[in-house]
Structure formats: C-alpha cells, structure tokens
C-alpha cells in the first residue's frame, strides 16, 4: 500500500471509531419524530435491572383493571379486545400527491416537445385517494381513485392533416357569470374486495392492480425512488390493471417466505373494465420468494397470457325480409399476447438494488390484423393505411442506491433500456440517470434526477441526428 493511501486509511479508521458512538447517540430518540404530535422518547437507561422504563409507565398511568377499562373506552382497541364484538366496518381515508418540476433540454420546435416539456415547467401530477375499509375480520374493501386535470391539455396529432390539437375543457360556469371552469376527471385505479380464507388463500375481485414486477405494485410516487416510471411500466407491456379475480397466498418459514398471485380477467380490450368481447379470459400470475440470509432478497417471476379483441367497426343490420335484426361486425382485431417478467430486489443495511426485465410479444390472426391510422400524418401522405404488424417489446432497468439516516437521503443510479417495435418513432431507448431521493419525514419525499435519453434507431429527421436529450426532473411527493 502506498504511503498516500495508508495516510488516508489511518485517518478514516480513527474518525470512524470516534464517530460510531456519536452516530448512535444521535439515533436514540432524536428529533426525527415519526408522527406529528408524538413526543420522542428519551433514551432509556441501559441498566438491565430496570424492569419498566419510567417514560413507558409513568406513575399517573392506570394499571390492572383500570387499564382494561380505559382500553375498552378506546374505540380503536375494541375490535382487538373482543372478537365477539368487532368494530367493523373500520373505514380509513388516506392518499398521496406529487408536484413536479421538469426541464427537457431540446429545441422548442423539436417533435419531442409534444411528449415532454422543453420549457421549464411546474406540474401537478398525481392526487390519489384511498378509501380503505376492513369490512369484517376477513373481508377488506380497497378503493383507489386518481383525481386529474386530464383530459384538459392532452395533445393529439390529426392523422390526415398532422395538425397538433390540444384538448381544452374550459366551460362557462353556469352559476357564476363570467367565470370559466376547467373540468378534469377521476380515474378509478382499483376497486377490490378481498377475503382471507387462510394465509395461503385470499380471493380478491374487482378492478385490480396487476401484481407484476416491483414498480407496478409500488406505483405510488412517494414509494418510487425516481421521478419517471420505466417506459415498460407506463407503456403497459403487461396490463397495469385488470378486471377480474385474483387468488393470492403466502407460506412462511424462519428465513424464507414464498408467495403467489393468480389472476383471471377480461384481459386487454377497448372497454375491458366492463366487457370482454372474446370471452377468452386472460391468465396471469406471479411467484416470488423472499430470503432473509443477508439482508432481504426478493426474487419474482411473472407471466401473462391474454387475447385482445377490438370490434372496431360495427353496425346494426335492421330486420328486413323477415330476418331478425342483428349486430354486424365488419372489422375486428384479434391478437394473442404473451409476456414474461423477472424481478429482483435486495436490501441490506441501507443499500438497495432493484432490477426488472419484461418481454411481451403480440401476434395477430391474419384475418384480424385490422388497420391503424398513422399518428404522424406525414407517413400516410399517399392516403394509405398501415397494417398492424406483430410486435415484440422488451425492457428493463437496474437501480442501485444507499439510504443514509441523514434526512433519509438516498443517492442512486438508474439505467433503463427499452425496445418497442410497436413504437414507430423511437423503438429503442437508453436512459441512464443519477439522482437523489430524500425522505426528511416518513411521508414526505424530495427527488432530484438528472439524466439523458438516447433514442436509438429513431426515424430519420424526426428528432434530429442521433437524438439525445438531457433532462432534469425534481419532485415533491407526499402521503397523507
């Protein structure tokens, strides 16, 4: 070892030895309170002979039957204390929201500006509300909705004219003269009823968040490390939500947990929330194992198989010539979709490693490929339509970070790769990014991310030569 390095090592070791008791003293009952209003407990006495620390059982606290009576007076404990008289249903409301600042470094007239702001922009992202009710000891209802300004501001490109159109939902307020109101929308993220039969079998019905991978299950911005979701999540290489039935369960041993999810749903379709046009249910599932030998390691595997049918053109044949009226479908697409995904998450002493990979293939029945209007207009200058082709989409990411106790700070590195043959404009994408994620309060998250997006094999002259765009995203996300 060189003299220079040996100096560094000696100083580092000395400082670490001195710093350890300082860090521990800071950790004990410090100012980082968990809940507002809850006083931080002072460090307890290390004397093993003290049976009950004073701050836990102050002299004025009731003991014995008085404590029981006091407990029964507390509604929150009634369901716990008496299984014959549970306090159900037990309703709770909570949610999360986020506020983002984005800047994409690209010319204002670049086509990319239709997909991401090239001007520095503040944006309100998600406002999600949960209505969670324990209906009985075994039954639970969970409803999640997202409030949004959409469709206001949504951008589309007309197929024939290539004109950029922006949706505007401003309407005159009927109650107040001269006031303009902008209406938004409510997106139903999930509506689920679950019933626990045994630890190995829970049945859920309704509108479910597809239990695949890691990111789709996390989905809430305070829980996500970065600002942007991977493209394969937003692109729904596996449907993000399904309408149907789910069975799930788990087995536990001292160092290992193993679990499963199985879904049966309407699959994909134009109105899959309430109609399955092909009566061919989609099947999916996930199996996972969690190992607690060195930190906690979770490995998962997901599959999805489903047939998507879209009756694009239908009309009613009126009853003529004595024949009954019927629905005629003149154009319909049928496609079979198969997807697999693997994921890994490892947490050890503050270090986090996450990675996922998903691949999905779609094959059309030749007589039911359908036709699509190109979205850019310039492609169909001769008026011809494109015929839908089979597709292969795959993508993955690798994220590593370390969470320090100082304000819950986590610097991280993330790299994403994506290949999508269904994307005419940018089939291949690489996106390395560096960022920092801070959680100064448990329900408050600050994020700052910078990176670059490479569009490989992009259509020539759409985004420029060798399109590469730098960006900065920052976000405040909070749970309430």
């Amino acid at each position: 070892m060189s003299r220079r390095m040996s100096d560094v090592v000696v100083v580092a070791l000395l400082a670490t030895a001195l710093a350890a008791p300082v860090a521990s003293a800071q950790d004990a009952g410090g100012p980082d309170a968990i809940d507002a209003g809850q006083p931080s407990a002072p460090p307890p006495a290390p004397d093993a002979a003290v049976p009950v620390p004073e701050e836990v059982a102050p002299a004025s606290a009731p003991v014995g039957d008085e404590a029981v009576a006091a407990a029964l007076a507390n509604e929150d404990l009634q369901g716990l204390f008496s299984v014959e008289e549970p306090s159900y249903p037990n309703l709770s409301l909570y949610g999360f929201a986020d506020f983002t600042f984005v800047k994409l470094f690209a010319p204002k007239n670049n086509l990319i500006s239709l997909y991401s702001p090239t001007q520095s922009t503040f944006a309100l992202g998600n406002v999600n509300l949960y209505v969670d009710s324990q209906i009985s000891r075994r039954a639970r209802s969970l409803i999640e909705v997202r409030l949004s300004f959409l469709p206001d501001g949504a951008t589309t490109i007309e197929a024939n004219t290539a004109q950029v159109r922006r949706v505007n939902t401003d309407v005159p307020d009927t109650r107040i003269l001269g006031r303009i109101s902008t209406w938004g929308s409510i997106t139903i993220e999930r509506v689920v009823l679950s019933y626990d039969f045994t630890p190995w079998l829970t049945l859920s019905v309704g509108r479910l968040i597809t239990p695949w991978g890691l990111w789709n299950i996390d989905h809430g911005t305070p829980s996500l490390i970065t600002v942007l979701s991977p493209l394969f999540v937003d692109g729904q290489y596996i449907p993000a939500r399904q309408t149907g039935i789910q069975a799930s369960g788990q087995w536990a041993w001292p160092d290992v947990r193993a679990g499963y999810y199985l879904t049966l749903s309407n699959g994909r379709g134009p109105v899959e929330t309430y109609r399955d046009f092909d009566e061919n249910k989609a099947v999916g599932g996930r199996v996972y194992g969690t190992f607690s030998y060195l930190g906690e390691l979770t490995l998962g595997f997901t599959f999805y198989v489903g047939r998507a049918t879209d009756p694009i053109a239908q009309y009613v044949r009126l009853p003529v010539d004595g024949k009954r009226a019927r629905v005629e479908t003149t154009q319909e697409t049928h496609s079979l979709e198969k997807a697999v995904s693997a994921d890994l998450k490892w947490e050890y002493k503050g270090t986090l490693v996450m990675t996922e990979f998903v691949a999905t293939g779609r094959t059309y029945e030749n007589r039911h490929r359908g036709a699509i209007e190109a979205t850019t207009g310039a492609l169909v200058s001769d008026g011809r339509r494109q015929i839908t082709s089979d597709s292969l989409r795959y993508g993955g990411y690798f994220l590593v970070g370390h969470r320090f106790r100082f304000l819950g700070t986590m610097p991280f590195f993330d790299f994403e790769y994506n290949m999508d043959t269904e994307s005419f404009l940018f089939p291949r994408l690489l996106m390395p990014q560096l960022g920092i994620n801070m959680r100064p309060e448990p329900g408050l998250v600050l994020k700052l991310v910078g990176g670059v997006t490479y569009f490989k094999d992009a259509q020539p002259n759409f985004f420029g030569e060798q399109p590469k765009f730098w960006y900065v995203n920052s976000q405040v996300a909070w749970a309430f």
Partner: protein
Amino acid sequence: MRRRLALGLLVAALAALPTSGDAHAFRIPMVLVAHPSIKANTAHVHELRAIFLRQSEQLSGQKVIPVTYVTGNALRVDFDERVLGMSADETARYWVDARIRGLGAPPRSVSSPQLLVRVVASLPGAIGYAPKSLVEGTVLKVLRVEGLAQPL
C-alpha cells in the same frame, strides 16, 4: 501532505455518516409473549420481522395477531431496532409505503406494557413483547427468540 490530510478527512466524514443499517446501541430487557393458544415455543427473528411488518400472519403455520406499542414508545423503538432492523423513521417510512401499495395498516398498538400484557392474555392468537417482570405470574406464554446476537 495537506492534500493527503484533506482527502483523509473527507473519507472519514463520509464513513462517519450514519447509514440506515447502523444498529441501535441501547437495550431494554424484554420477552416475547403470546396468548396460551399459540403452539410454538420459539420464533426466529426473521419470522417476527415478517409478522410485525405484516408481511406474514403465520408462526409455525398458525395465524397470529401482532400487538405493539404506539410510535415513540421506548420499548417499541428498541424492538424495532433489534428485531425489525429499522429505526423509528425507517419503520414509519415502511408503513407509509405499505399503505400506498395497498398492503394494509400497522399492527394494533397499545400505550403501555401493562395494557399489552392484558390484551395479549385475552386475545387468542395475539403475540407481543413486554418487560419480563410484568409477565411473571400471568397466563402468558413466553417464546424463545432465535437468531438474535443478544437475548431480547
């Protein structure tokens, strides 16, 4: 020389930053207690972690109901550090994330060890932790905890 010293101090400063994996230094002697209906005599620390993080409801194949203390309680802080491997902030962050993922609420919490002892003694399937002196002479079953470097 100055550059060496400055570099060494920088490395030392980074090394001194407390990380989420640092262990809590204080100990409060307590025991793991369960309702007499619980058949298990031991519980591994990893099983307890999964139970109190509501990742599992099973102890040796039997359904259990975890009971803990309110946030900020010294016994809970110590238990969370030594069994869950989490600081108070980390535990709070975990439950925020769990709710967003739709995984449910934290275990039921009580305000004092005396109350916990009475609740666990009365609720079939309940499991908790309390100072040993409060457990002696009660109907509670004391479980041995495996996998900890030092006794609970």
